[in-house]
């Protein structure tokens, strides 16, 4: 999976449930990542993380922290400075 070493990926650990835990897998030369958790247009959490090449970082989101927010669409936006990727769930 580290072939050609110029890509990275983000995904929810649990596709079907309401869990927002996600993982960034890094197969690129970039090591500095930033993620934002958005509730609709609002930033709910933001953090910088470092992930070495060919490593992955699992980020656990505390479910209690987002339990009572009004926003339905929770989007996780990750950037490496140049590229941006996002994943989202639309929760009831």
């Amino acid at each position, binding site marked *: 999976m580290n072939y050609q070493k110029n890509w990275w990926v983000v*995904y929810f650990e649990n596709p079907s449930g309401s869990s927002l835990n996600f993982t960034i897998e890094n197969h690129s030369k970039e090591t500095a990542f930033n993620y934002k958790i958005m509730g609709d247009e609002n930033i709910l959490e933001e953090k910088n993380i470092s992930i070495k090449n060919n490593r992955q970082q699992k980020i656990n989101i505390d479910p209690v922290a987002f339990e009572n927010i009004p926003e339905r669409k929770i989007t996780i936006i990750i950037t490496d400075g140049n590229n941006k990727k996002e994943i989202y769930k*639309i929760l009831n």
Partner: protein
Amino acid sequence: MAFYLSVGIVLFLPGYVFLLAVFGKKKIFGNIKKLIISFAGSIILIDFLMLLLGKAGISFTRFSILATIGLFTAVCLAIYCFRKKQSEDETQENKLDKFSKNQAVAIIAIVVLTILIKTFYLTDTILPSSTDLGHHMYWSKMISETGKIPDYVQKDIVSQDGNFIIGSAKPISDFIIGEHLIFSAISLISGIGYISYFPVIVLYLINIFGILGIFILALRLFEKSRHSKNIAILSLFLIGPIFAIAPPQSKYTGGGVIGNTIGNLLLPLTFYFYVRAFREKNAFFLFVGLLFSMGLFYTHHLTALLFLMVFALTVVFSLLNNFKDIKNLVVSWLKMIFSAPVISFLVFAGLFALFVYTPTYLQNQAVSTVIGEAVKQEHQGLTLTQFKFTVGEPRLAFGIIGIIILGIIFWKHRKNQIEYHFIILFSWILLIALIALKPDLVGVSIPSARIANYGVYPLSILAAFGFMYVFSRLKNDGGLFIKKSLLFPALILVSTFVIFSGSYDNAQNAKKTADPQKVVETFHASQYASARKDQFQQILHDHIYLTADSWIKLFFMRDYNFPIYRANLDRYENGIDRKETCTLSMISNPDSPESIKCFENLKINGIIVNKKIDEPQFRKTENFWQIYSSEDVNIYYRPQL
């Protein structure tokens, strides 16, 4: 190391010991021929051994396959040891196998150049990505995982009472067992996984041996000519380094066109054995020829059909050629047919087909779909220009010259002897040209371009003969037609044209096919979904824009049609291939009423698509969660609403 060792055990040992058992210690084959025939023979023998093993109810495992090969080797060696040493046949073959120093250098240079060009192209395609190879490797993996001969079935979307459902399993006629067993055997013995370089490497080897097969066939066909070796070397050149990538060469290797590639190895060698059998009136050659023919029928129906037609035409032409002495000819053939090796083989083949394994295309009456009027546009024949580009202009030009000259020679000598080399080559190219250009005349419905690709093999031999004949005659009697001083420049000019055409074709075909990173991304997304397969009831993926998508099913191994997929658009338009539009609509317009019904009926809750092409329509709706995102691949989840 384990992989290469298993290649030796699976693709050399059975064929080699079989040759020893059949021909004993006679030096009938030189070392190159032994290597090529052992390789091709092994493909056939492994198929038959595994089919017998499967019929006996023994599961395919590393141990069972190795034990079977070991037992077969022991039996063959025992037969070999019982045969007396015979050396009376040494002279003829040794003469054909002795090359001058220049010829040997030319052969080595051509083979090395061929390998270099093909390797250069395949470097980019070594990562498994092609659609056909993915389809085939699903079955090979199925054989490895279940340890059994597979039922070639798939489940399609069907309409029932106004709803869509995944129907019951229906037979597929597109696959033949001989395309899959060798890969299963190698994987089981070596432990190597299918999503690796190994399938392409095996196909690459088969392709190289197929080219060498043309070399030994040309050598045998023209054995009576003093130029036989030069014709064979030139044939090798015309099929090797030039036009080395275009189909049916490396494009077929990288593209995973397994049946055709094996067929292109077996067909020339089948002719080789028949030529030797009928010329030398040797029942053992006929026995091996029949075995190779049977191998074709268990590996590739199209090549087998072509072989059958060429063989029938060859028999008819041979009888016509020797009409006055037809009784003696038929008696000599019957003597061979009613010999112990041939009769015992025919009994074996009959019992095998009836009680061990009948090829799927015979069980499903798929043959009837090939016979008759061509309906699909791509079956309705090529233009002469398309045919010329498919087989290569210089090969066609010199091939036509070759067949005309051979025809004249045949006509002159028709009363003296049977010119098998002309009859086979003529029948071979005549049928290919007819089916490719005017399929209605023959009454078959086969993709015209695919059948035209077969033409490169007989045309390479014919072109080599034509080239050699023209220049050797000009060299000897040239004064009548051309000044001797101009002969060399003319040779250079023509050679330049041949090399330039072939190299230009290589350059055109050497374009990158699949971006390795995109392939890896598809595999990663598949791995992600398969690791969470309990959360996906049914998955849909795209075929049009996803790279290496046909390999996704290898991560699940639930059904040949799992995940279901959106096919190329023309498949929905021609009214033949796709009779439903759910798979098209669910990706192209996921929020439409039709799509919503399809999603609900089919219980699809996972969708894998190309991010850059198909993201917008999924983002527009709130019915999907974007749960996975890489550079090129997105996965969507459709929750229960």
